[in-house]
């Protein structure tokens, strides 16, 4: 084989090997780390996984935030205005966490409640994450068909 061909062969096989390995690992890593977002209505309807982690999005219901005095345990209700879901969280809430504001929490179901490991609110307080807006719109649409 002449040097040019040999070099090409080596380069091409390197590329193929790298792409192959990367593709396999990428699919694996994606499967491991994908989390879906559900609204409280979807959780109610049993669409969310029972054991594994998912994200719950909605609005923090007015008057629902409770803090166990002197500790970091908090619970509050996330609502899409059709169904509610009680969320438990231990830790520091973000600055923009406010009643009546949208929020995305990550965690899993424990009993009938959602145990959150992370709570995110948005930088811009006039802004509702599109995902949450969609979830609420969807719940609205579903709500109309359920109870007209």
């Amino acid at each position: 084989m002449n040097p040019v061909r040999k070099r090409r062969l080596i380069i091409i096989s390197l590329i193929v090997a790298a792409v192959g390995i990367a593709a396999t690992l990428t699919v694996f890593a994606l499967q491991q780390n994908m989390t879906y977002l559900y609204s409280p209505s979807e959780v109610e309807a049993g669409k969310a996984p029972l054991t594994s982690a998912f994200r719950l999005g909605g609005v923090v219901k007015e008057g629902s935030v409770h803090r166990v005095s002197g500790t970091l345990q908090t619970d509050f209700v996330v609502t899409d205005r059709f169904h509610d879901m009680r969320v438990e969280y231990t830790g520091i809430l973000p600055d923009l966490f406010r009643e009546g504001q949208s929020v995305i929490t990550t965690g899993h179901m424990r009993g009938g409640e959602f145990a959150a490991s992370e709570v995110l609110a948005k930088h811009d307080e006039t802004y509702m994450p599109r995902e949450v807006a969609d979830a609420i719109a969807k719940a609205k649409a579903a709500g109309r068909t359920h109870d007209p």
Partner: protein
Amino acid sequence: MIPELGQLALILALLLSALQCALPIFGAWRNAKPLMATARSLVVGQFVFVALAFGILTYAFMVQDFSVAYVAQNSNLELPWWYRFSAVWGAHEGSLLLWVLILDVWTLAVAAFGGKLPEKFYARVLGVLGFIAFGFLLFSLATSNPFTRLIPAPMDGVDLNPVLQDPGLIMHPPVLYMGYVGFSVAFAFAIAALLGGELQSSWVRWSRPWTNVAWGFLSAGIVAGSWWAYSELGWGGWWFWDPVENASFMPWLVGTALIHAQAVTDKRGGLRAWTLLLAIFAFSLSLLGTFLVRSGVLTSVHSFAADPKRGVFILGFLAVVVGGSLLLYAGRARYVAGGKPFALASRETLILIGNLMLSVSAATVLLGTLYPLLGEALNIGRISVGPPYFGFLFMLLMTPLVLAMPFAPLSRWGKADAVIWRRALQRIVMLALIAGIIAFALSVHRWMGLLGVTASTYVIAGTAFYAIKRWKEAPRGRRYPLEMLGMLFGHFGVGVFIAGAILTRTLSIEQDVALSPGQVVHVGNYDFRFDGVGERHGPNWLAQQGTVEVSKNGALVTVLHPQKRTYPRGQVQTEASIHPGVFGDLYVSLGDPLGPSTGAAGSSGAWAVRVYDKPFVRWIWAGGLLMMLGGFCAAADKRFRLRRSEEAQAHDPAGIPVSVIQPVQQQA
């Protein structure tokens, strides 16, 4: 009246940019010298009008002209002047104007220093840059005009988003944009070469300092952003694999590949087509970055409010730029491709391995970032891809790169030289293992931390091995040309960064605790005593300021004052208080008041407090800054300038024509 002048200046700049694109490229096609000669004056004209518009917007902020909607949205009477200045680029409209202004600065520099390039090539480069300016100016005028009036004018403005009221943010966008936009020069070179159907290695050499400078700025911009997230978001994290961060990281990865590929093309004439493709992708990813940050299609920790119309425009522009340049590439690449064979164990191969790993990781980051959009388009559901995806793949892909890194400088162009490899490998591995053992003795007991120390030492020792070899072998005064010094800085930077990133991750101690005044929490080797919260006034905020005394074995180390600021419109912003140190930071930030405590002191006022001990965190940014320094240093090399002075000689009164950009001289 004055804002209307700004508007007018923008419209004139748009017209000039259209001409700057059309006339020189048409002229180069038709071989019409007068048309090509217009490029220079059009560049200057366009710059003047964009600078004027930018100046007028700045003026509107300085005099608090709330009849301009953008000013009213992003400033108010209490905002101090330096934040009013940075508010010019604090939101979408103004940051876009900054983008164009920086593009014009780069274009102006190319026009000024590139006069000795062949006439047609020069005209095409400026024409392509004109096209980019045209796209962005049109975008600005059509969807996001900074001069739109708000009548009747409000008495007071809304405010600059408090997260942006931070010294880090005065610097972050301009520096980052210098990097993003700087890749437009390499891009314009690639497109001009493809349009003309020929590529001289000397043109690539000439474009190298530009790419290096852009890459240096991008590194600095990412460092500034990471530092801002660390100190301002109040979580003590420095990287979240968030879409907006990924947006700046992807061009960086491809840009890193590009500066290495350009070196191969410059010195060996090889990898030409690959270099062009990387130049196209580096800039396309910069555009994509702008799109991701500004369109709001992705939900991000940093999401700023957005308007879908803008997204559609940028997406269209992106399609034209990326699609057009890839089509051009597909049609023309074979005319410019070429190179010489190289042995398997040569420097080219090692650089190619690095290039592959960098491009593949840019692709995986792209996939992970866009996957939520893909999922939505395919109606799979609303998906988010967690940080472990990125972390896992990135570590995996960077391993071969890190392993290969010390050997690339030690290898020879084109030929294999296994002897030097063996000698180097023995010493480097030995040093790395010794460092690992020392770290273990110093109580780094997690395998990840040990791996970090070993890998970091491997890179630093490997780079030092080359530096020492060079010191011994090269003649005095010629030991470290700036280009090589830049490489050394860059590679040392990678080593320092690895140590910082992995040690911070494994050794950090983070505790969120509820503290009443007088209570002590023990974190790491330190005692943090919470002394309660008082009030403090700033220029435009009122803060709850905590006092935390930190001591080690009873000796006072520092007193920290974390704040919880409230801004005029009721926005709340956490200001962490940080005790910096070379070997670690102590980091305290306030959460919420927790109501009356049941504590023994009987005092009210328990607070949620984050208390972090973050060893080696500064090494992360130090590594990034070393890389930046490397980029700037390499760009200053005489090798790139020498050419110009030679050309200047050729341009002498003697009247030798300037055809003279010679083919590459080959270096062994």
